[in-house]
């Protein structure tokens, strides 16, 4: 019996097998690590391709030996259940582990060990790694665009004010809470617009005028997303209600609007705002390019918002409408007090996703010549003093956008989980 069980590990010989198995895996890991970090091939005595496959084969045999069902050893059981259920899984586990180990040293040395951050010109970058000096020198440009250095405090103050005003709702007194919607939909956008106009544009109160052409960098991304965000929501609500309306004309106008904007790419919308829109304005009426772009993106995103809100409206049970009508409520009363509060609560995650898409879309305004972060990168990349650092720039921008978008998506997951339990 012992002979038959020899190749098939079981509870009786668990000790031998788990020890031999872990030693084999350890050897294979040591081989890969030494190969990646020290650049020495421990198995160079093996012929040809066998030396590259050696750790894989050894690891597979090791994992196979350790695969004992109901071994009674807790750690071993958890390990087997999670990474080692069968040979195929074991192979994938090993491949992922090995590729992580192999990718670690070159990326580490490029990003940190061989990188430079000191100095303030290109000559400071002597190593073979990344040149973070470039990011350091250009940091203010990436954040504020061509906005004059001495006025950066104006942008910062404006942002802090706008964010602080956004949180006012949380601290409102209980008897004022009924005006919350009114505050967020009408008063807040107006105040935010005034703050941004008077602080960032300037021109009065002794602040020097800075034209929108000088705005740029990440702050422009925030400004554009912020305005599109607060304007596209009410507009989307109107079209969502319009699409659910019983009146055919209003319904079809809404459908046409929504399907039109959803059917075209944002880039053509931006082209429209920059080259076609001026033709449609009265003769001596000048509208700033930034304003035109914000209007275009708002109209575009409103269609997506409308579809999300419509989903919420549709998912409400008919009983809610019937109950509201039976109390004698009219259309507007019913929607404002019964339908919308429930529907909007349902669509919060969807709206958050739309806003996420909006933030990810804002770099596109670079195409019509507004220099937000991607535009500033393109500008810095072609600067004759700083040629050849495209990689660092794009990695920097990617990290920033990734953090913003990841935080937003995690927040929307949280909201989703929060409101799911309530229904």
């Amino acid at each position, binding site marked *: 019996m012992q002979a038959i069980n020899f190749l098939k590990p079981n509870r009786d010989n668990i000790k031998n097998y788990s020890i031999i198995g872990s030693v084999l895996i350890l050897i294979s890991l040591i081989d890969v690590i030494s190969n990646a970090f020290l650049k020495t091939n421990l198995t160079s005595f093996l012929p040809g391709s066998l030396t590259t496959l050696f750790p894989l084969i050894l690891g597979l045999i090791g994992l196979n030996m350790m695969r004992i069902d109901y071994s009674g050893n807790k750690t071993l059981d958890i390990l087997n259940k999670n990474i080692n259920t069968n040979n195929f899984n074991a192979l994938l586990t090993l491949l992922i582990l090995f590729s992580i180990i192999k990718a670690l040293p070159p990326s580490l040395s490029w990003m940190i060990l061989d990188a430079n951050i000191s100095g303030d010109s290109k000559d400071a970058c002597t190593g073979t790694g990344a040149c973070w000096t470039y990011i350091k020198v250009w940091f203010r440009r990436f954040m504020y665009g061509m906005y004059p250095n001495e006025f950066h405090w104006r942008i910062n103050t404006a942002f802090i004010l706008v964010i602080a005003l956004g949180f006012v709702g949380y601290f409102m007194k209980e008897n004022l809470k009924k005006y919350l919607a009114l505050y967020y939909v009408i008063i807040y956008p107006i105040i935010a617009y005034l703050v941004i106009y008077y602080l960032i544009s300037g021109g009065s109160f002794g602040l020097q005028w800075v034209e929108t052409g000088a705005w740029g960098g990440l702050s422009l991304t925030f400004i554009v997303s912020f305005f599109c965000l607060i304007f596209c929501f009410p507009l989307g609500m109107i079209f969502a209600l319009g699409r659910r309306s019983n009146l055919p004309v209003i319904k079809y106008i809404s459908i046409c609007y929504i399907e039109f904007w959803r059917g075209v790419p944002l880039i053509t919308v931006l082209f*429209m705002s920059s080259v076609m829109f001026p033709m449609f304005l009265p003769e001596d009426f000048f509208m700033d390019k930034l304003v035109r772009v914000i209007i275009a993106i708002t109209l575009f995103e409103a269609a997506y918002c409308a579809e999300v809100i419509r989903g919420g409206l549709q998912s409400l049970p008919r009983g809610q409408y019937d109950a509201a009508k039976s109390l004698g409520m009219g259309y507007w009363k019913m929607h404002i007090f019964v339908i919308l509060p429930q529907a909007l609560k349902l669509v919060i995650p969807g709206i958050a996703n739309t806003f996420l898409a909006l933030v990810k879309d804002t770099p596109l305004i670079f195409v019509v010549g507004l220099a937000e972060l991607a535009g500033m990168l*393109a500008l810095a990349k072609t600067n004759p003093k700083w040629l050849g650092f495209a990689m660092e720039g794009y990695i920097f921008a990617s990290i920033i956008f990734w953090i913003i978008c990841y935080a937003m998506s995690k927040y929307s997951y949280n909201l989703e989980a929060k409101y799911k339990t309530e229904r």
Partner: protein
Amino acid sequence: MNNIIKKFLPQILAILFVVLIFGFLTINAQTNMDNRGIDFGFGFLSQESSFDVQFSLIEYSGSDSYARAFLVGLLNTLLVSFISIIFCTILGVIIGVARLSSNYLIKNSAAWYVEFFRNIPLLLQIFFWYYAALRALPLPEKANAWFGVTYMTVKGYYIPAMVWENLNVFLYCGLAAIISIIVLKKYANNLRDTQGKQIPVLLYSIALLIILPLLSFLFGGVSLEFELPQLKKLSKISYIYEGGISLPPELIALVLALSLYTSTFVAECVRAGIEGVSKGQKEAAASVGLTPNQVLKLVIMPQALRIIIPPTTNQYLNLTKNSSLAAAIAYPDLVLVFAGTALMQTGKAIEIVSITMLTYLTISLTIAAIMNWYNKKIEIKEK
């Protein structure tokens, strides 16, 4: 009376509002164009375009018309969308299935892949591939051969071209194979429903697909040769590959970025679809004696596909629209060729932007219409 007012007043107001806006815009446009001496019309489409496009699927030169330039751009857009859709589907299905794996490492790597590529703006990804990653590739003379015959260089990817003789005979044979497979499938279904007999359709289909085109090589006079890219010296330091097909780096960067970005969304669709099939279905199927393979093929997949396909098509549509970002790295797609170069030359902003938008709108609405039809067809018909 009150009811009638309630019903018609808002509608009349809405119509009035729309008409007023459109009227206002049209009048403005009219006066503006009069002032600048531009006239409205689509006559420019037949004029000579006199600009070159560096990458085109059909014959095109500067002496062709603007209409043909439009076609070149449209075909390039469709090409990049088509390639990216294939890659993003393959990647998306793999990642989506991997997210459901029982293996801790695989599950989490797939989850991080999705989180990573989904949360970086597509434009930045395109820029990264085009300006940073692909610029690090070797020069033509230093490039190593991939698979022996293809060369990945900083100037593009060079692959062998196929030189066909009697291509149409080959295509007819392929078409005949597909038609006979459809007929066979119908026949097999009929046989199964009436007499309960099973025919190994898949086996026969593969055989048909291989044998019929093979016959065309033997008897139809079809022949296929490969034209390999050859390194050629232009001057002392500049080399180039001649022969074969060259895929420009813009196309490669676009395909990479689009398929990596969209594959994360496809993966989420696939995951949601497979998770959406309730556990009871699997257990019920197993309890009536189906093998695990049959459970997957006959019970899980048909139901999962019903959930997967509509949102995935939506993602394909998004991909096609996102391919317009090509303009940012000068890949000659519809937006760059038509809304960029042609607009610059003719100055006909209104006409050209509307044509471009209408083209995308047509693509979107067509696919949406097909999707609605398909949804109706596969809907669960409850009694």
